């Protein structure tokens, strides 16, 4: 299995001289497992990824959307294979309980007259949509993908991809669940029990993963102002990786305003502060970085 980062930026694409090393594209991860192509999220990074696919076309692409916020779908209309006949595009993602719509809703919304010159009905590829429930498992050839409900202001599925005994887990956007009350509040204990239950449910799906790719947007200091926004910290990700026994942790969803130098600085401070076990390899996700498992 091979994993390649095509977009590691959170919120909004941030090109420019200050983000050249880690990259300015928003979330997109390519996974090659045998002959299968699995893409996690369709942020702006999916556009450069799609340009490398020409020699293989026509082919099947399986795109798993963690959630439908812009930075995770913005590149979808520019995933070039959708315009070329004989390609098969399988789009997977959560059902939306508020709009009562399935994952097809993402392209339906994006490919409207006001926002894009081509309608969904005019796409040349064969489009397949599969809405997923938390806990559902998908099989693609010999690849297995497990889903789990994470914690974000919209339904966000974490994906565990397994192939030939190796595994990768991607959180999408995730804030560790937290208690909504003060410790003195009468409801604190009720919430605490639920937080523990939810954390365990997520941990169980991540357990012993070879590679954990996790949302570490903030430093703990920044997080104080941003609780409830749905993102984790470097520290919470390191703690989570150690708890579930991950071998490697890639911190991603870098803040759009953070320069490469600033990113390395806060990352190194986090390592200094958290002192991860030697058995855990912690790195910053970087656009263009490719790892073999």
């Amino acid at each position: 299995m091979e994993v390649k980062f095509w977009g590691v930026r959170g919120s909004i694409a941030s090109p420019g001289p200050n983000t050249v090393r880690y990259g300015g594209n928003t979330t997109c991860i390519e996974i090659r497992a045998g002959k299968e192509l699995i893409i996690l999220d369709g942020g702006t990074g999916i556009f450069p990824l799609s340009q490398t696919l020409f020699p293989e076309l026509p082919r099947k692409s399986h795109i798993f959307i963690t959630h439908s916020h812009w930075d995770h779908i913005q590149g979808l209309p520019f995933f070039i294979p959708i315009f070329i006949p004989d390609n098969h595009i399988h789009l997977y993602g959560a059902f939306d309980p508020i709009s009562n719509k399935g994952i097809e809703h993402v392209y339906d919304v994006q490919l409207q007259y006001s926002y894009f010159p081509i309608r969904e009905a005019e796409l040349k590829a064969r489009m397949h949509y599969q809405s997923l429930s938390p806990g559902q498992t998908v099989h693609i050839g010999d690849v297995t993908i497990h889903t789990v409900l994470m914690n974000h202001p919209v339904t966000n599925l974490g994906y565990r991809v397994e192939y030939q005994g190796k595994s990768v887990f991607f959180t999408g956007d995730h804030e560790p669940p937290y208690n909504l009350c003060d410790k003195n509040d009468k409801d604190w204990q009720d919430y605490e029990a639920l937080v523990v239950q939810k954390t365990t449910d997520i941990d169980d799906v991540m357990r012993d993963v070879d590679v954990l790719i996790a949302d570490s947007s903030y430093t703990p200091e920044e997080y104080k102002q941003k609780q409830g926004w749905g993102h984790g910290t470097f520290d919470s990700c390191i703690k989570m990786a150690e708890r579930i026994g991950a071998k490697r942790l890639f911190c991603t969803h870098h803040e759009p305003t953070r320069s490469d130098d600033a990113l390395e600085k806060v990352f190194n401070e986090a390592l200094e502060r958290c002192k991860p076990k030697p058995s855990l390899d912690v790195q910053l996700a970087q656009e263009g970085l490719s790892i073999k498992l």
Partner: protein
Amino acid sequence: MSAHISPELQKKIELMVESMPAFPRSVHKILDLTSDVNCAPKDVVEAIEHDPVMMGKILKLVNSAFYSMPRKVTSIKHAVIYMGMNTVKNMALSIATVGMLPKYNAARFDMSAFLLHSLVTGFVARKISEHIDRQEFDSIDFFVAGLLHDFGKVVLALSVPDLFAQALEMTKEGISLQQAEITMIGVDHSQVGAALGEKWNFPAPLVQAIAEHHQPELVSNILRDYVFAANQICKMKSIGYAGHDIVEPMSDLLMANLDGSLDTLLEKVGNLEPLIDEAKVFASL
């Protein structure tokens, strides 16, 4: 829905429930709270938890098959931690924008008095549960069962208002509301409430408690047992009104399960006034 509800009534109920509005106070509260992006999650939870319609509809959504949860979601707190605050908040908002239950309805069923009865039954059931061995249940389960035990009445009042009004009339001659409902509609509110709960994938003990809250002689679960007791206490003390005020006698089974009579339970619970005052605030229109 279960077999004893006619297909015709079932269709009527399903259509009505789709667009069923919630109680005015929680609708106002949710619209007000959600206009501020920084509103306190606890306030949103509280507004939902004090409205049987909002509570029922949100439990329905989070327990739906498509959104299949690793375990059944039994409370709004549970929903908030599992689905995230923003999703629950937006669910409440979409219910709030449907509109409000009108103060006057064709069935002449007093919604405000009904809400007070439901809230206090929930509060009393929860209060009692703090003094007993709750088995596998949490205190909040007793509250939810108390709040929703009569949900079927609102559903009947809105989907077959004329028949329900006649059933209410019949209670003046001293027959029980559920007997009157069966005579007029062919089905009673506990059956309707339980059938909806089942269709909406509510946890089985909650459905059972709703289904059997007028059958004290049946072996049920402790949610039912204490909701039965709380319901009678509310009627005994004339707190709120939900269509009939006949205090049903305890069965031998319940006397044994609850370790005494309603009076002994009342002693355990102590002063109910603070609970009633709290409920009145939520039930006011």
